[in-house]
């Protein structure tokens, strides 16, 4: 018994770890029944793996048996691996006991597809329903949508889950067709659209009637695997942008492909996952969501891939020196946000602080901007007299020589595939 449950957890946690979503925030499920748990407000990372990723949820598959054969997936039918499946009770017990010890914020439950989509989805729903109704569990639950599951089951799942997600897998339809002929982006859009529509419907009703139950309060997300297909960053970002716009997603996750199979369509086992590229995509994603950048400004036909050596905000600034220098004492918030080295909270502080008097270099440093980077792009009360005109290559050289990139030690060795 002891050993069997350990083995199952080993297999089913290992298989689930490639899903990068770890968020446990954005819900509003209060502990109002004096039961267990509270999923209100910010999420908590309870620990971090040795690769530096947050562990906030018990992320497991219900089973790694799967009728599909997607080339990029460990659980694919043709892979010769050990198979296992949890019972409904086992998942419930693990979740509750981990939660009571403050190991986790809740459950991230996904599954291989066994028998058919509805059969699998029905079991996932049974677990979340038991957690919510019998165990009075108010912790966070992220439920993976099984492609092809019926609308009734999706709707029932949404009554118990905080977040639902379904993965796009590859950035483009063509890429996906090569690696997972049985899947398509169309099939992902259907449940995303259905759940989004239900979220809107529930929140409209909520405005009228207070007792309307919560429906997927933390919204939906998706994941794109990058570096497995030859898509450009432009294609990736434009796909993400379209999904943010059309399906009001809370997050798009970018997962650098880690080779797990000897398949001629994919990078060979042992090649480094494209970590810098992944990092740059997240930075670009942030620019779209929090910094008021339009996707076209970040990646476009003239600039289809993000720079490797500098972050996308700096890269944009170097391409658009005509907007700089920005005077921190007079410029509007929108423009201050665009200065490399100034983040959202520093920008807010600057706008507040300057009401009390002009800001000098010392103020800016203390407020916490990355001064060495920002100084090339700003004017402040005691700015030195500008003698030379700006020159992008020169600025970039200075910034790079002053920075200690975390990636400098491992050279960019993503393989070119095609």
């Amino acid at each position, binding site marked *: 018994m002891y050993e069997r449950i350990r083995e199952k957890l080993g297999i089913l946690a*290992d298989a689930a*770890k490639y899903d990068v979503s770890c968020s446990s925030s954005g819900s509003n499920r209060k502990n109002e029944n004096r039961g267990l748990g509270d999923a209100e407000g910010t999420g*908590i990372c309870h620990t971090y*793996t040795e*690769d*530096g990723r947050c562990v906030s949820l018990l992320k497991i598959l219900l089973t790694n048996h799967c009728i599909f054969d997607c080339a990029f997936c460990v659980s694919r039918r043709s892979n010769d691996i050990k198979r296992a499946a949890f019972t409904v009770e086992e998942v419930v017990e693990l979740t509750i006991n981990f939660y009571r010890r403050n*190991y986790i914020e809740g459950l991230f439950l996904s599954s291989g597809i066994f028998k058919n989509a509805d059969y699998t989805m029905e079991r996932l729903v049974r677990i979340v329903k038991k957690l919510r109704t019998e165990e009075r569990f108010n912790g966070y639950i992220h439920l993976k949508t099984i492609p092809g599951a019926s609308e009734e089951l999706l709707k029932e799942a949404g009554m118990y889950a905080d977040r639902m997600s379904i993965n796009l897998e590859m950035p483009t339809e063509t890429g996906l067709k090569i690696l997972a002929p049985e899947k398509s982006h169309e099939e992902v859009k259907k449940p995303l659209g259905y759940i989004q529509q239900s979220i809107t419907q529930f929140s409209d009703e909520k405005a009228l009637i207070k007792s309307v139950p919560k429906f997927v309060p933390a919204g939906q997300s998706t994941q794109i695997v990058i570096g497995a297909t030859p898509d450009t960053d432009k294609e990736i970002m434009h796909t993400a942008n379209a999904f943010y716009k059309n399906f009001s997603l809370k997050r798009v996750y970018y997962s650098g492909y880690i080779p797990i199979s000897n398949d001629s369509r994919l990078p060979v086992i042992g090649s480094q996952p494209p970590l810098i590229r992944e990092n740059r995509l997240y930075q670009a994603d942030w620019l779209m969501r929090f910094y008021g950048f339009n996707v076209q400004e970040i990646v476009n036909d003239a600039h289809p891939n993000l720079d490797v050596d500098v972050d996308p905000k700096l890269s944009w600034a170097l391409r658009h020196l005509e907007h700089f220098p920005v005077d921190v004492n007079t410029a509007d918030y929108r423009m201050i946000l665009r200065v490399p080295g100034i983040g959202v909270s520093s920008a807010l502080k600057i706008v507040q602080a300057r009401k009390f008097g002009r800001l000098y270099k010392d103020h800016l440093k203390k407020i916490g901007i990355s001064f060495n980077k920002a100084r090339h792009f700003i004017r402040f009360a005691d700015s030195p007299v500008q003698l030379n005109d700006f020159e992008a290559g020169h600025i970039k050289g200075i910034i790079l020589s002053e920075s200690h990139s975390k990636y400098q030690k491992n050279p960019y060795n993503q393989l070119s595939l095609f």
Partner: protein
Amino acid sequence: METFVFDGTLEGLLTAVFYCYQKKSGRVKIVSSAHFYPDVFQQHFEVVSEDDKARRVWAGLKTKLDKQWMLNFYKSFLSEQPPAFQHLVDFARYIIDNEPGAESNYGNPDVLAISQLSQKVHREKHRMEAFIRFQKTSDGIFYAHIEPDFNVLPLLIPHFKNRYADQKWIIYDLKRKYGLFYDLEKVDEIVFDFSEEMSPGLNALPAQLLDEKEELYTILWKDYFRNVNIPARRNMKLHIRHVPKRYWKYLSEKQSDAI
């Protein structure tokens, strides 16, 4: 400059602010009695904590500051750092002497210091919410002990009370020698002597005090922690930045497998 010596409590600090005004003092130097070394050449004023004087100052600050800033003030106090006391007194006087809104002047050194100190304390509170690992004892209480850099225990009450409404729990601060006990109704402060078998030197409670299934869940958690790691992405520098080594001793997943 006058030197004020106070008893190290929040009441004492607020009383000191009151006296600054009553005595019409210029800038004063504030020191807690624990950090004060009398100097024969220097006069000092001994502040005796008084509830009603402290309350008047607190109420005065409340008319100028919103809830968040009042909390920032309290958090900075819980940092227990000697320079914090000076910043708190100077900040309080700056707020009282100026029109409402002065707290957003980040160009002022005390405003900036309070906003940064409270951020530090807040970060540690958040880390405790993350890194506390309860162990279930044989009498059904979930127990954890910690040694935070700052005195964050009072800040943890609402979080754990909301979250674990249906289980009894104890969180004990070994460094400050007091703890919190939730009995399913309310949270009380507790103090206890550690007996031999429950020495504070241990990271975990000894097996004979624990629920019979506790060992299983510790092992499963360690298994889980090991299995979700992706070796191809190993990045220990990042790992240590997120989970600083000084916290490892609380974390069951970072203990060796010698159970």
